[in-house]
């Protein structure tokens, strides 16, 4: 009855519509809880044109990307080692599980002590969940590597390193992408949370917290929309990369 496009448009528009009706038209909500949609939209564009938003956005983005990238490099490297060696895996199993079960946000005060209140403690926050997720998913991906495929390489004379380089790494890639997607969302969350603490001059988390303290509710909502767009767009980007580079999964 409805085309997929119609359904998608409906899904996008339903929330703003309900918002518009309840807050703007019927004025059922307290402006402290749900400001008018129009106010939020105006504020959103003001933030963009005033120019301070960019600095906050840029700061958050840099911290996030720095922590995320470092976490990927370290996590994938450690994950490959753990995935390749059963001994290393057994030896590190407890450590990995222990830190994975610990809420990262609880470590932040410790990071403040170790790295200071500047950027490095926030980068360390984005790094931690990324590192753990990449480590677990990469090592899992390596163990998933197809024995038939490895055997094929072996009988055609591949060395251990060649089997790793030409077969195992590719076999692990789909699972590595699962890790990339999970870590992307998690690292953004902890970056923004860590920005709400002391010592942050610029950053979307800080701006969100400020607008709460000063009861600038339309600003708060506008910032949430910015963060939502950031998360959504980056996730879409990873999925696009995944479709392009690991096209063989599930086939």
């Amino acid at each position, binding site marked *: 009855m409805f085309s997929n496009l119609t359904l998608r448009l409906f899904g996008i528009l339903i929330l703003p519509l309900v918002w518009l009706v309840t807050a703007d038209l019927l004025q059922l909500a307290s402006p402290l809880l749900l400001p008018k949609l129009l106010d939020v939209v105006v504020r959103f564009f003001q933030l963009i044109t005033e120019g301070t938003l960019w600095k906050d956005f840029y700061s958050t983005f840099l911290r996030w990307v720095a922590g995320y990238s470092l976490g990927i490099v370290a996590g994938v490297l450690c994950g490959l080692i753990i995935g390749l060696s059963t001994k290393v895996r057994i030896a590190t199993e407890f450590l990995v599980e222990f830190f994975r079960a610990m809420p990262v946000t609880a470590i932040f005060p410790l990071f403040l002590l170790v790295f200071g209140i500047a950027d490095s403690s926030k980068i360390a926050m984005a790094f931690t969940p990324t590192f753990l997720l990449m480590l677990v998913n990469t090592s899992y991906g390596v163990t998933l590597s197809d024995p038939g495929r490895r055997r094929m390489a072996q009988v055609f004379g591949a060395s251990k390193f060649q089997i790793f380089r030409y077969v195992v790494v590719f076999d692990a890639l789909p699972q590595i992408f699962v890790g990339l997607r999970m870590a992307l969302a998690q690292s953004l969350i902890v970056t923004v949370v860590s920005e709400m603490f002391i010592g942050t001059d610029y950053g979307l988390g800080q701006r969100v917290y400020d607008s709460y303290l000063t009861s600038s509710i339309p600003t708060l909502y506008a910032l949430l929309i910015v963060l939502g767009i950031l998360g959504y767009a980056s996730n879409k980007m990873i999925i696009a990369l995944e479709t392009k580079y690991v096209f063989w999964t599930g*086939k």
Partner: protein
Amino acid sequence: MIKLHQVQKSFLQNNRRKLVLENISFELPAGSFTTLFGPNGCGKSTLVNIISGLDRPDSGEILGLDAIRGKTAYVFQDYRRSLLPWATAKENILFPLKLRGVAKEEQQKLFQEALELAKINLDWNQRVLSLSGGQAQAVAILRALIIKPKFLILDEPFAALDFERTLFLREMISEVCHKLNLTVLFICHDLEEAVILGDQVLFLSRVPTVVLQRLEVNYPSPRANNFSTTNEFLQLKVKALRYFEECCQYSQVSGQK
């Protein structure tokens, strides 16, 4: 020539030694096509692993492996898993050369030679995922031929293919092996195929495996599919069937012990 002499192999299973291969002796004459045929669960894959050097026998010896070192090629049953899904058809075919560090121009030359030999036409730059089963197995065969092997192991290469593809690839393999004078070891599940392609068919028992019978097929190679409609073939097939039944009976008797 490759010669197996009293090869034995056992594995540890539930803390007990389980004999898999029991005094296996046979010859693979150079340039001949040998089919291994037996019921399910005979130690065929163990035997292949030993011949290909992936595994070592407990006792006994295999002669003639030095001459084929680095010259052994494989075609596996499961082409979906044995091909690299992230690579194109051509990259898959060239994979053994890449492992050996062969120069790019030389790779091209060998690729063209292999194509002329096999007489197959495909879009070689497409990904293997988009190939049909028969095309994928053809890629696997070309990948085996590209190293100019002396010894070719075919591990149930037609098992996952439909009949039409099987007929086509069967003739192609027979022709290519004949042309290159390859020594071939063909693991097979289908009695008709075993006789059509093999210069000799070895009948194996269930584990612990012994070679129970040997059927010689004196018919000129390369073999076309219409070999299977000749009287000669039918007589051989009757004989083969009897041998196979012997194998099964032997296995039952020894299983009851």
